[in-house]
Every structure is written in C-alpha cells, then in structure tokens.
C-alpha cells in the first residue's frame, strides 16, 4: 500500500495537467468522485490494481506514480542529514519531506552535492593511499635518485679535474649524457603519473582496472544472471570498448572475473540465493552448505545481490594476505577500502589472522561516527607442497551497522551502544585518532 500524502497530490496535478475532471477520471476508473477526492487529498492509501488503473488512465508508469522516486529522494536526504558533519545543525527529519515535496529540484541539488562531496573524500583517500603505497612511485623515486647520483658523481669528476685524460673524460661525458636522458624519462613518467592522478584517469594496475570496472557496474551484471548466459556477445564487446580497461591484461582480468561471476550465478541462482540469504540471515556457512559452494564463493556472491528492486544487504568485501596485501576488494559507497594494503591494523580482516578458523566480528566505528559491522575469517587456500608455507588469506564482509541486525552476525551485538564499538580509522594517514596506540605514522590530510 502506497502512502497517500505522496501519491494523492501527484494524481491531482497530473489529472489537471491533462485537463481531466475529477468526475471524468472517477467514471473511467469505476469509483466515486468523492472517493477519488479523498485519494487526491491524501486521505486514502491506495495500491494494487487501482493504482495501476489510475497510472494507466493518466498515462504514467506505476513507479512514476507510486512515490518511489520521492522515497529515494527522502532516503538520500535522510542520509545527508545523518552526516556527523551536520550534527550541530539539528536538522528536522520531518522537514525533509516538506523540502522534497515543495522544492524537489533543490532537494536533488543537495543530494547531488552530498554525493559529489563523498566522492571527493574517497578520491582524497585514494590519492593519499596511492602517494604512499604505489609501487610505481617507489620505483620511480629510487630510479630518479640513482640517475641523479650517477650524474652528480660524473659531473664532479668532469668539473674538478683539469688534467683528466681523454678516455675517462669521454666516458664520463657519455655517462652524464645517457643518465640525463634516462632522468628525463623518469621525470616525464612521474609527471604523467601526477597529471593522470589529478584527473582521475590513472586507474593503476590491471587488477585495479578490473575492480573499477566491476564497481562501475555496481558489482551486478543482469546479463549473467539469466539461464544460458554467456560472457561472449554484448558483454565481450563491452569489455573491448570499456574506457576503464586500458590494457589487454586488464581486459583478460575482467573477462576472468565475469566468468567467475557467471559460474557463481549458475551455482547460486539469484532469486534462490537471495531468498536463502534472507532466510538464513546471511549466515555464510549455512549458505555454503545449502548451495555446495565454498565460503569465498558465497561471500563474493553476496556482494552481487544488487538487482534493482530485489536487493540483498549491501556488502563490501576485502581479502588480505598475511603481509597485509589487499588481493580483492569491493568497496561500499561510504567505506573506502585500501587498494594496496595499509588499512587500519585494528580492522577485523587483520585481527582474524590471529584466530584461524574463528569468525571475528567487529562493530567498527570511524572517527566521523560512521559504523560498520565487519565479519572476517582466516581461510586456507590450496595447500602447496611441503616445505612451502601454508597460503592463508583473511576474508572480510562489511555492511552498514544500520542493517547488521538483519544478519546472524549482528545477533547479541548491542548495535546502539557506542561502548561496544571498536574505534578504528581508514588508515593512519587519514585518521585523526592521534592518541591511538596502534598508530604507525602521522596523518597527512585534514584533521
């Protein structure tokens, strides 16, 4: 049943715009004019076939009429109002409906700005992460200093020795020339790195590009959810044409990811899996047992439950090895995950490495007040031959604390209690918890 205050005025406005009288529309619908009047005045809730008939009579789709867009807008405004940054303004949640109703364009403008602001925050995190962790930068700086050392040493020899013999003179002039050219190449590569980082066009490694491609699709590919689906055809053409995939390695990686997606979709069909996930309250062990899948397949499948109108809980995912290297990630819009490791050492994904086999759950609270449920477990990948060490990876699912009570992992966790939350950060460089005993370096961006 649809909330009348949202739908009624919309029916009236549309009817008037079409020049239809209340009597005329009510006759067409087979209801009394007085009942239509109550509906339009927002005093009667409607749904089902009547809503469908009204939509048809007014030449609208049901979802245009049933207030879904308004509800999304209200949800977005509620999200905006919940920003800890705005806590001091004591925004009245009731006024959001008024704003959305009277000035929808202004409301959408606020939501657009809010999203852009969140995106900038993520970009700052990503760039900071890249500046400190990017292997390209580390190599380039090392190369640059090595080239500079060779030039400086050779130049000192050339400028300090009047009686230098012709052979060594030629040799060191040649070194200065060749090293200068190599230095220029390194400097140009560095300049290109910063240029593309500034415009956001450098995605990083092929693996990063694949992740960006998946994230750009909301981790959901409807074409792979149908019976008889294939990675060939339109999807293969999209892989070739996508501007996010800039190398053959990235395109191969994306194709591999889609093939794994397809295999998971066949093993765990969408509707059946979503139904089981809700029934089993997202218990990954129970889901693995029910579908004959392994835990990692189940966790990845949970991330893909993003079909519009039939969505599961929005999960983020992160996989890290013992070195802290992040080998797989699916971020959430409000939870940036590091590309190159170096997240907060307090995160459950790292804590799980001390507890083989155990499920580590954590209510993680970020400095801005955002709270997430983290659930992590250490898994053993295919065992290598003795005497090579075991290959262990830690896998973590994350969801907003607001929906954690829909999962088995939220049970018994007092989600309202601040005292039960673990104070964490994204990583030390962007964390303002200066008193944290786990801090490894000073923050570099805005406290």
């Amino acid at each position, binding site marked *: 049943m649809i909330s009348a205050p949202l739908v009624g005025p919309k029916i009236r406005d549309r009817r008037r715009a079409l020049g239809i009288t209340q009597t005329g529309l009510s006759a067409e619908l087979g209801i009394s004019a007085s009942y239509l009047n109550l509906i339009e005045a927002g005093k009667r809730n409607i749904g089902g076939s009547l809503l469908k008939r009204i939509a048809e009579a007014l030449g609208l789709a049901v979802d245009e009429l049933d207030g879904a867009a308004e509800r999304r807008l209200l949800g977005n405004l509620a999200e905006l109002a919940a920003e800890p940054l705005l806590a001091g303004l004591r925004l009245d949640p009731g006024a959001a409906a008024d704003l959305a109703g009277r000035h929808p364009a202004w409301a959408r403008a606020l939501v657009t700005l809010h999203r852009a602001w969140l995106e900038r925050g993520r970009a700052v995190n990503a760039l900071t992460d890249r500046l400190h962790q990017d292997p390209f930068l580390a190599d380039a700086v090392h190369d640059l200093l090595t080239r500079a*050392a060779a030039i400086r040493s*050779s130049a*000192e*020899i050339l400028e300090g020795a009047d009686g230098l013999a012709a052979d060594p003179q030629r040799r060191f002039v040649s070194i200065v020339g060749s090293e200068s050219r190599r230095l220029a190449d390194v400097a140009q590569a560095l300049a290109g790195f910063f240029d593309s980082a500034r415009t956001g066009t450098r995605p990083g490694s092929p693996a990063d590009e694949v992740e960006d491609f998946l994230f750009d699709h909301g981790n959901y590919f409807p074409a792979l959810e149908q019976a008889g689906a294939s990675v060939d055809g339109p999807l293969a053409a999209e892989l070739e044409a996508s501007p996010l995939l800039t190398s053959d390695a990235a395109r191969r990686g994306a194709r591999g990811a889609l093939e794994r997606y397809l295999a998971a979709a066949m093993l765990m069909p969408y509707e059946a899996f979503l139904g089981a996930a809700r029934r089993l309250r997202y218990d990954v062990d129970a889901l693995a047992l029910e579908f004959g899948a392994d835990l990692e397949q189940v966790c990845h499948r949970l991330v893909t439950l993003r079909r519009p109108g039939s969505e599961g809980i929005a999960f983020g995912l992160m996989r890290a090895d013992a070195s802290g290297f992040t080998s797989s990630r699916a971020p959430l819009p409000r939870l940036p995950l590091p590309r190159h490791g170096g997240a907060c050492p307090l995160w459950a994904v790292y804590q799980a490495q001390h507890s083989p086999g155990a499920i580590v759950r954590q209510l993680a609270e970020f400095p801005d007040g955002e709270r997430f449920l983290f659930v992590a477990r250490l898994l053993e990948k295919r065992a290598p031959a003795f005497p090579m060490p075991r290959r262990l990876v830690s896998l973590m699912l994350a969801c907003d604390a607001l929906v954690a009570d829909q999962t088995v992992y939220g049970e018994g966790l007092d989600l309202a209690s601040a005292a039960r939350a673990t104070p964490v950060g994204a990583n030390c460089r962007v964390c303002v918890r200066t008193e944290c005993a786990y801090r490894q370096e000073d923050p570099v961006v805005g406290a």
Partner: protein
Amino acid sequence: MTRVLIAEDDQNIVAALSFVLGRDGFEVSVALDGDEALRALRAAAPDVMVLDLMLPKRNGFEVLKLVKADPALGALPVVVLTAKGQPQDRRLAEQIGADAFMTKPFSNTDVVEAVRRLARR
C-alpha cells in the same frame, strides 16, 4: 695499498666511484649483487666496503648483517649508500652496524672522505 670493495648494481655509479677512489690511491674491486659481494669479501677481505642497500639477489641490509655477524669480517668498516633516505632506513642500517650512511645523490668527496677516515681507523 688500501683495498675497497664497491657493492653497487648501477654500472655508471660504479664507474664514477671506481674512478675517484682509484685516483685517490685505493685499490678498487666491484660486486654487482649481494651474493657476489659476500663471495668477494670471503675470498679476500678488503679494508673498507662501500655498500648499496638496494642490491639484486641479496639486499644490502642482509649483506651488512651477515658481515657484522661474521667473526672474520665483523670489524670491516662499511659505508652504506642508498636512495632510501628515510630515517628508519638509516636507523636500521646503523643498528646493524653501518659505519657511515650516504644518501643518493651523494658527493664523491664525501664518499672518498668517509672511506679514507674508516681506512685509517
């Protein structure tokens, strides 16, 4: 004649350091990776070693640690060269036993002066 082993993988830096040390009267030998440096040290210990930290096969930290732990080589003075100029790298090198620490791009004069000082010790 005082013997110096340069353990450095960049040929042009090796050429420049070999030239200035040779011109200053040192007998110079060269190792282009960490393993080669250890073999050279054990075959004929020099009087001073100039050691790059970023060496192929076995990095300079490991070479330094093995040298300082070896009773026959432990007293060998070592000048560390590196593009890793972070304070923690310097602290680590000094803790392991580096006698001098130079960051790239270094001055030839400083390297020769450090080698000369350590050779007299």
